[in-house]
């Protein structure tokens, strides 16, 4: 089962965890959370603004999930990306995979995160303490 969500609402990790159905056949659950850091390249960051081309982002995420499923026997994949203005310390991204064995779950989550950062049309603008703003890549 795949779940791909792009949302302007803050990600509630606790609710996500409760929603995640557990499957007896899966020995491993791996979970990645991306968090907005308070600095980048030595510059203090106040806020990040994520812009997204949502229909294409969802399509591209679906492709990435299909690729991961071809590589590893994964049961469940859940991807949630928070877009809009995010303060420092908030969760921007959650990727979860369950699989019979841990190696596959770790590999799948890392693959999804790596490919997401390369290909999914989401852009990030940092606002620094100085007031300066910059689109990142």
């Amino acid at each position, binding site marked *: 089962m795949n779940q791909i969500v792009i949302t302007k609402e803050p990600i509630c990790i606790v609710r996500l965890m409760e929603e995640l159905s557990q499957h007896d056949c899966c020995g491993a659950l791996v979970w990645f959370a991306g968090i907005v850091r308070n600095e980048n390249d030595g510059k203090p960051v106040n806020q990040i603004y994520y812009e997204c081309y949502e229909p294409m982002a969802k399509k591209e995420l679906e492709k990435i999930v299909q690729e991961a499923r071809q590589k590893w026997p994964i049961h469940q994949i859940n991807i949630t*990306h928070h877009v809009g203005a995010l303060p420092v310390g908030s969760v921007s991204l959650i990727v979860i995979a369950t699989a019979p064995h841990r190696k596959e779950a770790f590999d799948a989550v890392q693959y999804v995160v790596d490919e997401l950062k390369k290909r999914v049309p989401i852009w990030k*603008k940092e606002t620094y303490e100085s007031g300066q703003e910059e689109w990142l890549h």
Partner: protein
Amino acid sequence: MNTRILLFAGLRERLNKSEVQLDLPQGTKVCEILPILFGEEAAKLTRCTLFAINQNYVTPETELHDGDELTLIPPVAGG
């Protein structure tokens, strides 16, 4: 040939528009759009801009067709 062009992030801010409609000659290639929209800046932008037609990535040499929706994709940074 009518083409809708979507702009995001830095490219959107440069033109101060999130969408442009262009009437283009048949056979126009994807890579010809940046000079039309950004003039002299296009050379610099070409190195780091990707293209999608109807939400799928395409190469810069792809020809546009009537009704295509072209998206200009500056460097992505999700996650």
